[in-house]
């Protein structure tokens, strides 16, 4: 990392003074070392107070050819490829309001800088939730979570952000502010742009606000964890549960180099319903020993990730996708690839999405990631490298994005012709 590099001074002073005409002085500051993005040092941090201000600053930057990095809570700012350039951090920190909770309509709209925790607290007052459990909800924001398409364990039942976001407003590089979707759950008027910007890593525009559909908070929850003999048994149990009539909200396999595979099941509903389902599950699990791990098993992703933060020198983290029936095989392959002395742990959802942590010697980690990506690719899956060890040579975060890459690049050109937004961070150099 060259985060300690001194801030650039080349930025035209006209630009800065133009920005100050739009944004009050206390919300424009020179970027410090802590504002670096994957080692690239920007020069200025601007915190607009609203959508119009944000769009104006973005347009100014675009006009003078500056690279803009949108930033929410900054929890996943290291994800994706290192930016090719970074001049201006456009922070949504002050755009943090819940705009409207239409509880009787089960919808909520919020500004991009609103944290997930604040949103959840607001809607919980009426017994509702955004049925999504992304990483670090205390700091992660609506805009950031959407841009990185982060989803957690509830995805199995409630879908991911693409299934929950019903409207979005985006500021484009040329200053256009555009909304699509709306505040009704069912709406097929026009193109579904909220889906387009979900997971686009801020490369098409800056999300300024979004509208979500909500779900009722469950009355009761129960977590059951089962210790399985081996991966085969874990896989068999997961598939049996998926093929059963149980109405579980989450289902995952946890395992690691030094950990026997566990299968965790989350039930949500009424007390009577839960008891009946738990009994059914125990029959299916047969002889397997129950583990009294409790609800904290659902924070496994955060636990794994916090290790990459404390030990960033020697570990990498990847998000893999595979077919639901190939989870065990994938984990076995990870074990095999890591056998050369790397430690690893995995948490995989029944949807086929998993998180893998590998730690050990940097050169071996790189080889392991490449090997795993290739293996998954052959089977139609993928490996996105979310965190790399600091000393590791460049490895594309995304891997192969298939035959639609040209189309993606065409979309990018339409939305951000000059490559102002997050240049180089996304697939295929976008």
């Amino acid at each position, binding site marked *: 990392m060259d985060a300690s590099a001194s801030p650039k001074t080349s930025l035209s002073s006209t630009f800065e003074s133009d920005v100050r005409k739009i944004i009050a002085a206390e919300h424009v500051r020179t970027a410090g070392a802590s504002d670096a993005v994957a080692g690239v040092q920007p020069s200025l941090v601007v915190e607009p107070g609203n959508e119009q201000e944000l769009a104006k600053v973005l347009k100014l930057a675009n006009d003078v050819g500056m690279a803009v990095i949108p930033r929410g809570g900054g929890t996943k700012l290291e994800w994706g490829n290192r930016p090719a350039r970074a001049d201006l951090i456009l922070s949504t920190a002050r755009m943090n309001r819940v705009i409207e909770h239409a509880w009787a309509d089960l919808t909520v709209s919020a500004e991009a800088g609103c944290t997930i925790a604040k949103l959840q607290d607001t809607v919980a007052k009426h017994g509702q939730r955004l049925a999504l459990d992304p990483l670090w909800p205390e700091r992660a924001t609506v805009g950031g979570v959407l841009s990185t398409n982060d989803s957690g364990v509830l995805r199995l039942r409630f879908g991911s952000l693409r299934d929950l976001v019903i409207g979005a407003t985006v500021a484009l590089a040329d200053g256009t502010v555009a909304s699509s979707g709306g505040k009704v759950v069912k709406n097929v008027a026009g193109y579904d742009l909220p889906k387009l910007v979900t997971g686009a890593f801020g490369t098409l525009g800056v999300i300024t606000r979004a509208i979500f559909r909500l779900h009722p908070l469950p009355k009761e929850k129960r977590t059951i964890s089962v210790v399985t003999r081996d991966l085969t048994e874990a896989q068999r149990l997961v598939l049996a549960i998926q093929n059963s*009539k149980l109405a579980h909200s989450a289902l995952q396999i946890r395992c690691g180099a030094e950990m026997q595979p566990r299968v965790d099941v989350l039930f949500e509903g009424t007390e009577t319903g839960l008891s009946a389902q738990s009994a059914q599950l125990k029959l299916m699990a047969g002889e397997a020993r129950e583990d009294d791990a409790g609800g904290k098993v659902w924070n496994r992703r955060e636990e794994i990730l916090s290790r990459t933060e404390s030990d960033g020198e020697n570990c990498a983290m990847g998000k893999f996708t595979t077919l639901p029936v190939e989870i065990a095989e994938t984990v076995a392959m990870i074990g095999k690839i890591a056998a050369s002395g790397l430690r690893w742990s995995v948490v995989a959802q029944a949807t086929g999405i998993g998180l893998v942590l590998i730690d050990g010697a940097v050169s071996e980690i790189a080889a392991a990631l490449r090997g795993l990506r290739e293996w998954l690719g052959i089977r139609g899956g993928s490996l996105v490298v979310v965190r790399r060890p600091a000393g590791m040579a460049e490895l594309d975060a995304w891997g192969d994005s298939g035959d639609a890459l040209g189309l993606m690049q065409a979309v990018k050109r339409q939305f951000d012709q000059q490559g102002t937004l997050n240049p180089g961070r996304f697939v295929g150099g976008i």
Partner: protein
Amino acid sequence: MATGISQPRETHIVDARIVDARIFDELREIVGPRGLITSREELHTYECDGLTNFRVLPRAVLLPDSTEQVQKIVRVCHREKIPFVARGSGTGLSGGALPVENGVVISLTRMNKILEVDIPNARVTVEPGVINLDVTARVAPQEYFYAPDPSSQSVCSIGGNVAENSGGAHCLKYGFTTTHVLGLEVVLADGSLVHLGGKTLDAPGYDLMGVFVGSEGTLGIATKIILRIVKRPECVQTLLAAFPSTNEAGAAVSDMIAAGMLPAAIEMMDNLAIQAAEAAVHANYPNCGALLLVELDGPVAEVAALMAHVNEICKKSGAWEIRVAQSDAERALVWKGRKAAFAAMGRISPNYIVQDGVIPRTELPNVMREIGRLSNEAGLRVANVFHAGDGNLHPLVLYDRRISGQEEAAETLSGKILELCIGAGGSITGEHGVGEDKKKMMSKMYSEPDLETMQRVRCAFDPLNLSNPSKVFPRPRLCGEKPGEYVAHPLETAGIAERF
């Protein structure tokens, strides 16, 4: 369905060369003599979709039976700048499959194979011409089903569902077509082939599949579709409750939501709709001001507990009769009445217009009152069928074409109802699409920058504007045109909405 207005109306004419004989020969070479229709009599079958008041005769209809054939056809169209319109079963209600003057129709009905059934991964791969209900029929023995269930599911195609992002009664709980599509093989307007999404989730890159679903055929032609299927719930229960009026029924719906319930479906019909359904299929509905149909599904114990609660809520809100369907046959009959509601209008009115609008659920009493007022004012009856759980209204404007002026009055009334929906913060379409029918309404719902931004996507996919041109957008954007500055949204200037 939809209306029976016979006079074809003028449609937007795109700049296109006349298809000449040489090109017909080339197309015939691709699809074989039986795959090309050019005779006037036969072309009439394709002149409209489920919305029959718009009719355009295409120059030719092509019936490819493979992705390669679709690619070859589209390459010819691209070279010759011939606009093309993809068509499934032609059941759409917004004129999305309406042919374009001097253009060709590419009918996907021959591409009707279920290519792969993968039960352990809960995936089914199909060609676009496969009928919606056939997917469920295929996986029913393993106790799975394909969740999106538009009322036309026994005849509509998956390709058409993908184009329209079709909904249905059960999308309250299960989501729309877009929730259940995992991957697409798409022939772009230049004939090239791309794969969006796939059998696994979260493929790296933009969610172009998410934009394609519901783009009404304007971004290309889907030739292969990977669907997600769902395990049948342990039990399903359907409750029928009779209320004095839609106000009490609406209050019951709000109470269910407030109590934290998410039924699989909540449907409402008003008295006129009930009468029509009774006349058509004898669903044995109680004769009441408003009928609520609530379906719960899931594990037995869970459903039993919730059903008791729904019962209570309905009683409290003033239901004077509550029945729970006791058998699969009874349940099927209850649904038959609901699904036949549109067609049933023919029993009580010579002509009718099917409308499709969405409102925030809480606006239901206000909007119903206004619809009543507008209906009185126009002297025309309006029957109402709703997906009440998600605020999707289907007002049916009844009229008699033989009475001079009624047709125009019905169209005006139908348009005013949509404006009501927009004013209430809703949408001009919940599941039927914009197509040809509602493109002018798009400017009332979205601002110019909103629409221009959507069209940037179009420019990336189809810069020559060949794939179903002149649909969805009120004014096509020339690709390469510099987008304009921000213009205030019509609702903003009217003081109805505020931009934050």
